[in-house]
């Protein structure tokens, strides 16, 4: 249906976005690649000599690197698991008839509007602090030893905080998807004697599949570069227990001011992100006629 003229017009219309994003990607990226081959430390001006693959060697052999890779995966995976499962639960729940659904929905959605820095600070201090935090106070008053969240289970604590912020997002999307579910189909299944579990597995879940993929895609994009939450809670520690790849790059380039090393890490992270991206796109591509 599209004519030649409209095709040309279409190209013109897409061009600004493509050019801008291309520039946004290529300019810093090429500088990053360039820096990654230099000995470039901000605090020791040395004229930035070319050092070949040295930075890559040091970054990959850094004992923290492996831990950071693993933590990145656990962080993304953990948050996805909690938010998708919790989101389905909330979506099913909110879809049922009840009083004051609007108010309840508002309460569920609220955490999504909170700044990552604020929610991390609030959870860390007001709730998870073992001495003055609420969990600690409750545990102590019941005669239990309070949990030192940031010391003993740092990564899990961060996963919980991030999940709290993103559960509303998953709920929103899954809830919207629920509303287009064919009620008659459900009722027919019920008439045929299908239990609520098999109705869920064979009708609801397939219906939500598309929405779930979207949730996974969008959240993965955001969770791969989680940073602020780690910075204000654990600083990646203790040791490297909560250091993800983004945070490790931050440590190299902005705490050790070793821009060369950090850039090498950046390039590695970009390559890994692209691998994940390709993997996700394949998965989404099947599920999404985008």
């Amino acid at each position: 249906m599209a004519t030649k003229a409209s095709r040309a017009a279409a190209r013109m219309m897409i061009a600004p976005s493509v050019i801008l994003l291309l520039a946004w990607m290529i300019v810093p990226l090429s500088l990053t690649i360039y820096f990654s081959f230099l000995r470039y430390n901000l605090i020791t001006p040395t004229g930035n000599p070319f050092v070949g693959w040295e930075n890559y060697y040091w970054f990959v052999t850094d004992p923290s690197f492996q831990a950071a890779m693993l933590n990145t995966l656990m962080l993304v995976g953990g948050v996805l698991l909690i938010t998708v499962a919790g989101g389905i639960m909330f979506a099913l729940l909110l879809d049922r008839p009840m009083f004051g659904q609007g108010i309840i929905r508002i309460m569920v959605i609220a955490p999504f509007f909170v700044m990552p820095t604020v929610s991390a600070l609030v959870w860390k201090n007001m709730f998870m602090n073992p001495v003055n935090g609420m969990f600690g106070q409750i545990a102590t008053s019941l005669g239990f030893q309070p949990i030192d969240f940031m010391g003993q289970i740092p990564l899990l604590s961060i996963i919980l905080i991030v999940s709290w912020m993103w559960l509303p997002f998953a709920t929103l999307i899954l809830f919207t998807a629920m509303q287009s579910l064919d009620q008659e189909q459900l009722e027919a299944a019920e008439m045929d004697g299908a239990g609520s579990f098999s109705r869920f597995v064979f009708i609801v879940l397939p219906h939500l599949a598309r929405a779930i993929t979207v949730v996974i895609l969008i959240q993965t994009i955001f969770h791969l570069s989680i940073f602020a939450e780690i910075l204000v809670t654990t600083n990646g520690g203790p040791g490297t227990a909560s250091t993800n790849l983004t945070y490790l790059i931050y440590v190299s380039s902005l705490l050790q001011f070793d821009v060369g090393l950090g850039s090498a890490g950046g390039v590695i992270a970009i390559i890994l992100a692209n691998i994940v991206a390709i993997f996700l796109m394949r998965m989404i591509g099947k599920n999404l006629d985008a």
Partner: protein
Amino acid sequence: MARAVSNRTRALNTAVAGTLGFLMFFPILWIFILSFKTEEDAIRAPLEVLFGSGWTLDSFFTVQERSDYFKHFANSVIISLGSTFVGLLIAIPAAWAMAFVPARHTKNVLMWMLSTKMLPPVGVLVPIYLIFRDYGLLDTRIGLVIVLTLMNLPIIIWMLYTYFKEIPGEILEAARMDGASLREEILHVLTPMAIPGMASTVLLNIILAWNEAFWTLNLTAANAAPLTAFIASYSSPEGLFYAKLSAASIMAIAPILIMGWFSQRQLVRGLTFGAVK
């Protein structure tokens, strides 16, 4: 709903969902309460905080004295609205073209755009910092608008694309038959139909831009610093600070929270990313 539901079931559902919803909301409620307490009261046991202590506005005044809330607030508003507006300007034509004049590579282009969002920002901070320095964009609102526009552009395009795609092509053809120009087509036919979708795109982007805490912290000093920088100075305690932190937090999140609550209907309706057929 076809089935009649007994009030008892309704009440039960309400109780379960209400409890869970309240738990989700509780942290926000709690800092709201703490922000009206004195520092000494704020660290007392939860029940004492609720029933055994007075209320005060002191923390808000202390926070305001430390750093001018309204300046940061104005910056946040300008940056988030600005980047959303500029983003829309660039994204609407692109999304339109992709939705209505699909070419062989449209899907790949879209996916590539999304993949640019996966780059870890920290990996390109130093280059961006140097570029910003050379162009005098450090600590300017314009600089932040540029960065945040580019950050969120892929999401805007994708969302708009999915909404446009749901608009039946026949309507456009009919308009075209009637001799509408491309501009008229976009303005008078497409836009009204896409308004709910655009509304939720705008909302989501304002939220994302408002809460963005990496670029806004690293590229600003004083002049362009938004509320994320306002809150950053409370990340290390000095003495008792729960009440101050709570007050500052409430001040930082309240505008977006209120906006979100009032517009949640639009947000819910539109936030599908094409997930709903």
